[in-house]
């Protein structure tokens, strides 16, 4: 059994929270005491049935305002798979929270209200999905009960979205007509839309491939910690602990340590009490080298036959996440895997109007703005491009005055 991580996106009131509630409810994932709690809650649907959205709106302010402010994570499983859902807020002012939920997902469900069709928010959310490189998209056309389960309405929305998907180069898009409120095509195939020949949402989620997200097969392991017991019997023990972010390391592989450039070969790969012959993307292990090399936290071990980019200048997409606007005159910290280095924004190349997707020149970068910048770092960064490797192609920006995470960056090109 494996895990599928997905998130829901859509405008306020499109039914994201209700859809998640419905998935949980119809898969019997809601336990009796939780159900009792929502039955006793004040918020009810107009027809008096329980409001399933309360399941995810976990904060007092959210229940009071009836909106989602921050990401909520929900868990459920079927016989086929385990699911981790991020219920993300749709409001433009909470875009940063949506990006948080989306960054670890391998699938996005974009809700569209059947009565309204593709709206500005749909474009914005779809743009974020393409920006963050999420592999699979489900367009769930919701509230079909309010348009008489009309095929024509569904088809028109599908056609409209296809044009958008093409423009955004979304690879894998699936369209499903649903009613989250009534439960049509969520877990059970709807009998009210016999014209629809596709699968229910759950069925689709159970089948979709979750093969490793990283496209890259280049072996990389950022060193997080050096294990040195310094006891008598383990006097010479020196293990480099980290999580392989892409590719596979094997015993006897020739490796290079960056940024120093020193090279060696892997003498042993350990995982707790086991010795492994290889370690692949996703695994947390301890690597031993045949020779003495100076390595500490923040260094990256890579396969010598597939070196990463190395540069102090890189063109990156930036999502700005702080209420304080970007300041090109100050020095930020850039955290790339286990490495932290000083960083300036050398240039703002353009900003994207995320409602129309138009690019335009800008000298200001405010909360929730997205665009292209040139980053200039103090140390050489051993990176890959984001489309090859999410883990080694992304970083966060930290404002050292406030210590807040102020930006998410995705490396796109070399800059000169």
């Amino acid at each position, binding site marked *: 059994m494996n895990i599928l991580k997905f998130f829901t996106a859509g405008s306020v009131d499109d039914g994201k929270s209700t859809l998640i509630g419905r998935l949980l409810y119809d898969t019997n994932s809601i336990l009796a005491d939780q159900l009792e709690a929502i039955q006793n809650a004040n918020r009810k649907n107009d027809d008096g049935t329980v409001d399933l959205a309360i399941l995810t709106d976990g904060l007092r302010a959210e229940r009071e305002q009836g909106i989602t402010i921050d990401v909520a994570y929900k868990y459920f499983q079927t016989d086929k798979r385990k699911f981790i859902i991020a219920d993300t807020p749709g409001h433009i002012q909470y875009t940063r929270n949506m990006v948080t939920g989306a960054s670890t997902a391998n699938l996005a469900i974009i809700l569209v209200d059947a009565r309204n069709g593709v709206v500005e928010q749909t474009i914005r959310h779809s743009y974020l999905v393409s920006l963050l490189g999420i592999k699979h998209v489900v367009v769930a056309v919701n509230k079909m009960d309010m348009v008489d389960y009309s095929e024509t309405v569904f088809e028109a929305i599908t056609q409209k979205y296809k044009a958008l998907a093409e423009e955004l180069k979304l690879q894998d898009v699936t369209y499903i007509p649903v009613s989250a409120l009534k439960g049509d095509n969520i877990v059970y195939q709807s009998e009210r839309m016999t014209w629809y020949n596709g699968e229910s949402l759950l069925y689709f989620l159970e089948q979709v491939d979750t093969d490793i997200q990283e496209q890259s097969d280049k072996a990389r392991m950022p060193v997080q910690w050096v294990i040195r017991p310094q006891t008598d019997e383990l006097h010479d023990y020196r293990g480099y*602990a980290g999580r392989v972010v892409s590719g596979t390391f094997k015993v006897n592989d020739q490796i290079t340590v960056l940024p120093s450039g020193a090279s060696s070969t892997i003498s042993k790969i350990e995982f707790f009490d086991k010795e492994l012959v290889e370690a692949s993307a996703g695994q947390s292990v301890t690597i031993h080298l045949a020779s003495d090399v100076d390595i500490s936290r923040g260094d990256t071990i890579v396969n010598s036959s597939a070196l990463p980019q190395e540069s102090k200048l890189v063109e990156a997409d930036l999502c700005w996440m702080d209420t304080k606007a970007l300041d090109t005159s100050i020095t930020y910290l850039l955290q790339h895997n286990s490495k932290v280095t000083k960083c300036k924004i050398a240039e703002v190349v353009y900003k994207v109007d995320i409602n129309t997707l138009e690019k335009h020149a800008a000298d200001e970068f405010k909360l929730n703005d997205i665009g292209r910048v040139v980053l200039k770092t103090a140390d050489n960064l051993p990176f890959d491009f984001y489309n090859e490797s999410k883990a080694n192609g992304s970083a966060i920006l930290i404002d050292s005055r406030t210590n807040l995470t102020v930006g998410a960056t995705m490396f796109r090109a070399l800059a000169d």
Partner: protein
Amino acid sequence: MSKYNFDYLDELEAEAIHILREVAGQFEKPALLFSGGKDSITLVRLAEKAFRPGKFPFPLVHIDTGHNFEETIDYRDRMVARLGERLIVGSVQQSIDEGKVVEQKGKNASRNALQTVTLLDTIEKHQFDACIGGARRDEEKARAKERIFSVRDEFGQWDPKRQRPELWNVYNGKIHKGENVRVFPISNWTELDVWNYIRRENIELPSIYFAHDRDVITRNGQLMAASPYVNMDEDDVVERKKVRFRTVGDISCTAAIESDAFLIDDIISEISQSKISERGARMDDKVSEAAMEDRKKGGYF
């Protein structure tokens, strides 16, 4: 991840180890909060996997309410001896004796709420900048919203409206003096995942997790251990029942369930079929719809 035959437990495990190593790398004085419950026992195993054959880069910290099940203290001491790691105990009794907190009165009195003060004092005394905890997002709806690195201010408070964005697997542990970070490596695990992991790893647990005979009373529809730490009066009828505990906290706020589950396999099938969530057996969450959110804002785990 399926390519390498990487099962979901492997994936959750690898993520948790990565998080623990980030704590080691990013903080000066971290600590692992050890309650004696299955979640913190799981954390200890994960720490072994992250750092052995080296020592843990942090001590274990137990906030002791003084109202413990004997079995868990016994388990704790044996475990610490086996690990050869340092244990620091923060005592709620001491906080009471020093007049920092006042014991609750009445039938439903519990020391659970008092723990927060002892925890914050212990953090301050030892200058801990990161506290690793075993909370999971599936436990409760406010926890479902919390980041893996959750920054607390000088008073231990969580501000749910001002959480830092947390992207990919990059964790920002930068803090100002006086602040600290609560870190939750098993955020993405469910109760069932924890049990499946305990089974797979063959981890020993305190015996109270398994069915045993015990004197209990029924309080607000729940079974509570008949113990000197639970205030009883003449209305309370003590009965002997076959029970086990699903979570382990302070005796006065942890309810038992009737169960025949002697073995891990029995427990796993019991949980898979159960219709009541784990925190349903916690009196402390029943107080209001936002009970956990409010406690977290006040500095709770």
